[in-house]
C-alpha cells in the first residue's frame, strides 16, 4: 500500500483523499470483501478466547461467565492444566512428527514435479499429466481412506491380495503404527503434490527467458539451467511457502488424521486436532478446546516468527 501511494505521489505530487478515492474506489470496494471476512470470522470471535480461562455456561454472555475455579478457589489456568495430560503430549508429539515428515517428503515433491513438467516438450502431454495430478486434491479424505481400505486392508485389500497370491505375508499398511505412518505420508504426498505445483509453475513462468538463453549460450545443459536459473528464480516462493508451512506445525488439518486413524494406530495417529475434537468438542468441553486452540496458535506464531526471522537474517524477504 505504501508503495502504491508513493507512486501516486510521484505523479501528482500531493494526493487529496476524495479525488484519489473517486479514482480508485473500486479497488477499495474489492478490498472490503476480505476485510469484512476477517472482521466477522477472525476478529469478532476473538472475544470468546476468554472462555479458555472461564467456566463455560450457556445462559451467560462471555463476560458474565465466572472465572474458572477448582474446588471453590480461583484457578484461571484450570483448563490448560486439564488439557495438558499424557494424551495431549502424545498428540503433540504425533503432530510434530507427522508434520515434519510431511514437510520432508511432501514439501519438495511439488517443486520436483513442477521442474519436471516444465521440461516436457509436448504441450498436450503436459496438460494431461497436470490435470491428472491435480485430481486427488479434489477428493475428500474420507473418500481417500475408503480407497485406501479397498487397496491396503490386510485381507480384503487389493494390493495385499496380490501380495498374498505370490505367497508372501500381507503388509499391514493400515494396521501397524510404522506402516501406517508411511501410508499416511504417502497418501498425503499423492493427494497434494499436483495441486501444490501450480504456484511453482506460475513462478517458473515468471522467470525471464533471457536468463535461459544466456545460460544456453554459456553452454549450460538442462540440469545446469534447472539448478542455476529455475531454482534460484523460485527461491523466494519456496521460502515464503516454507515459512507458512512451519507456522502450521501444531495446526494441520483435522480431516486427514481423523479420516485415516483407526483403533489400532491411535498411538501415532492422534493429532492435536483430533484430540481436541474427541476430548473437547465431542465432550462439550468448550473451555478446554479453546485452551488448546490458544496454545496451538501461540506455538504456531512462535514458529512462524522464528522462521521468518531466520529467513530475513539469511537475506531473504520473508513474508513481510
Amino acid at each position, binding site marked *: 500500500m*505504501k508503495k502504491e501511494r508513493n507512486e501516486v505521489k510521484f505523479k501528482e505530487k500531493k494526493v487529496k483523499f476524495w479525488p484519489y478515492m473517486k479514482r480508485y474506489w473500486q479497488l477499495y470496494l474489492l478490498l472490503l470483501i476480505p476485510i469484512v471476512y*476477517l472482521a466477522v*470470522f*477472525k*476478529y469478532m*470471535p*476473538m472475544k*470468546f*478466547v476468554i*472462555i479458555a480461562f472461564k467456566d*463455560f*455456561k*450457556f*445462559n*451467560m*454472555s*462471555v463476560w458474565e461467565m465466572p472465572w474458572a475455579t477448582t474446588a471453590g478457589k480461583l484457578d484461571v489456568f484450570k483448563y490448560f492444566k486439564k488439557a495438558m*495430560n*499424557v*494424551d495431549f503430549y502424545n498428540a503433540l508429539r504425533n503432530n510434530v512428527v507427522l508434520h515434519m515428515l510431511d514437510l520432508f517428503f511432501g514439501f519438495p515433491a511439488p517443486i520436483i514435479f513442477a521442474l519436471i513438467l516444465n521440461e516436457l516438450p509436448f504441450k498436450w502431454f503436459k496438460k494431461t499429466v497436470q490435470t491428472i495430478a491435480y485430481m486427488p486434491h479434489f477428493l475428500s479424505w474420507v473418500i481417500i481412506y475408503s480407497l485406501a*481400505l479397498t487397496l491396503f*486392508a*490386510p*485381507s*480384503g*485389500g487389493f494390493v495385499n491380495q496380490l501380495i498374498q497370491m505370490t505367497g508372501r505375508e*500381507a503388509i499391514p499398511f*493400515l*494396521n501397524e503404527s510404522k506402516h501406517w505412518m508411511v501410508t499416511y505420508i504417502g497418501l498425503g504426498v499423492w493427494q497434494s503434490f499436483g495441486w501444490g505445483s501450480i504456484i511453482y509453475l506460475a513462478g517458473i513462468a515468471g522467470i525471464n527467458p533471457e536468463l535461459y538463453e544466456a545460460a544456453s549460450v554459456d553452454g549450460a545443459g538442462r540440469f545446469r539451467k534447472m539448478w542455476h536459473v529455475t531454482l534460484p528464480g523460485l527461491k523466494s516462493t519456496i521460502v515464503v511457502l516454507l515459512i507458512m508451512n512451519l*507456522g502450521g506445525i501444531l495446526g494441520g488439518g483435522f480431516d486427514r488424521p481423523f479420516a485415516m486413524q*483407526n*483403533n*489400532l494406530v*491411535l498411538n501415532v495417529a492422534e493429532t492435536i486436532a483430533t484430540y481436541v475434537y*474427541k*476430548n473437547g*468438542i*465431542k*465432550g*462439550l*468441553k*468448550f473451555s478446554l*478446546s*479453546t485452551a488448546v*486452540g*490458544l496454545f*496451538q*496458535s*501461540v506455538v*504456531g*506464531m512462535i514458529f*512462524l*516468527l522464528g522462521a521468518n526471522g531466520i529467513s530475513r537474517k539469511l537475506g531473504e524477504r520473508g513474508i*513481510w
Partner: protein
Amino acid sequence: MKKRLLALVIAATMLFSLAACGGKANSGETNTPANSNTPVEEVKTPSDIEKLTDGQMVDGKFKETKKISVEVYDRDGATPANDNVWTDWIKKQMLDKYNVEVTYVAVPRWTEVDQINNLLAAQSAPDICYTYSYATVQTYADMAGVTDLNPYLTKYKSLLPDLWNWLKDENIYCDQDPTTGTVWAIEGRRNNTYRINTFVRQDWLDKLGLKAPTTTQEFEDMLVAFKNNAETLLGDAKDQMIPLMVTSDVGWTAANLIESFMDPAITDKELYVNGFDDRKYTQNGTKEAVKLLNKWYNNGLMWKDFALYPSGDSTADDLCKAGYVGAFMHNYDYPFRNAENSFNAVLAATYGENAKFVAINCFTDKNGKYTKYSYSAAGDRKAFFPATNKEPLASLLYLNFISSPEAVEYLQKGVEGINHKVLESGAIAISAVDEANKAYTQNSGQNIDLTMTCNGLRLSTEELTQKSLAYTYAMVDPADVANAMVQAGVDAVAPKNVQVGTIQAESEGTDLTGKRDAGFCNSVVCSPAEFDATWEQHMKEYMKAGGQAIADERKAAWEKTYGTADMLK
C-alpha cells in the same frame, strides 16, 4: 514502523484464528426442591385446564398454535426419517388434539451422540431430544443447557396421564438428583429386555453334520471346523471365510463371551462400581475373554480387517449377508431386522430357505450356566428438553401423546393389510410392505424411533403383545424369532436400578469409549506373546484417563447411600 504494525496485525490474526461459540439461552425455571410422589388431583374440565395453564389452553387445546421440533433417529430407511406417513400421522394428531405443530429433525442413529452434541453446542438442537447417553445430558446440564423438568412435571402432572401411566414415577424420576431435585431427563421404558444373542449359520452346521455348540470349547471347535471346511461351505469363495465376525465394537459383538467370563456370583456393588462402561471393559474376567478372542484371531478364526472399520460401518453386515460369516454376536434380533434386507431374508434369497442364522447359547460360565446381562426395564432412551426449548408444556404434551396406548399401538403395528395381518389366533403379524405401499415402510422396527418413550412391542393387552412378538419381523421365520427370544432369556440377569445421584467424574472423563475400543481392538489383534502387556498398558491408560476416578466416585456414592451392603434388595 508501518511494516511492523502490519506484521502485528497479521500475527494477531493468526493468533486468534479460532472460533468459539456461545450466546444466550433461556435457562429454564430455577430449581425447586425434590418432588413428592403424591398423586396430583386430576384436572378434567376444560376450565380447570385453562386455569392450570394460565389461559394458554382453551377446551384442551392451545389458543395459539405452538411449534415444537422433535428428534428422530435416521437409519437410512426407505423413506426420509423426518418426513413419512408415520410422522405425518403424529403431526396431524398433535395438531388436532392440542393445536401443536410438530416438525422432525433427523439424527443418524449410529453417531447420535456426536450429532446431538453438535446440535446442542450450536444451540440448534430440537425442542425434544432423546439419546442413550445420560452423560451427554449431564454434561450439558452442568453448563445450564438443559431445562429442569421437575417444576413442569409437578405443575402439569394432571395433564399427562398417559405419560404417567406408562412410565410411572420410577422412570420419570429415575434420574432425579437426590439433593437438588432436578430432573434433566425422563427415562424411556423397555417393554422387553432381551439384549444380545449368539448366532450361527444353521445350514453350515447341517452341511458339516455338526450339532449346535453348547459350551465355549464346542463353539471354538465349530469355528475351527468352519475354517477347515471353507471349500465345502463356500466353494470358490473359500478365501472369504470368516468363522466368527467381531467388529471394532468388540465389547458389544463379543458380549456373550465376555459376560460368561465374569463371576456369576458378582455382587451388585461390584457390578455397579465397575459397570460404568456398558461393554464390561473394566469388569473382572473380561481380560480372560479377550485373551481367548486374541487366540482365535491369531488362529485365523476371525475377520482380519475388523479393527480398521469404524463402528457403524456396514461392511461387517454386508459380509454376513454375503454369506461368508459363520457366527456372530449382536442384538438379540439382529438377523431379523429390516424385512427383505435382513440377514436371514438375504441369505434365504441367495442360498435357499435353509441358509439362516439361528440363536444359540454356548458360552458357559464357571458354573456351567449361560449367564448374560439383559437390559433393565427402567432406563432406555432419555428424553430431555434443551434450554432452548420455549414450549415445555407443548413438548410434555407431545411426550404424553406418544406414550398413549393408542398412538404406540398404531405406530407399531401400522395399517392392517399393508404393515400387518391379523392371524387366526388374533396375533398381529408384521408383513413387509409391497412396492405399491413403499411409503408405509417403518424405518425402524415397529417404529421404535418414533415411540420415544417405549422400546419394544406394546399392544393393547399384554396377552396380545406376547402372542404377537414372534411375528413382528417380516420375511423371516417366526419360529426363529421365537427361538431367539427364548435363548436371549436363558440365565439372563437384569441389572438393578442403582440410585445414588450424579457421578460427576462420568462427565469429566476424556474420550473413554474411544480408549476402550482401542484397548479391546489392540488386545485382540496383538500377538499372543504380547497380549498381557498390551491389555495392561491400555487398561492403565484408560483408568488414568478417568476410569479410576469414576470407579472411585461410584464406590463412595454407593457406600454413602447403601452403607456396607453389597447387594440391593
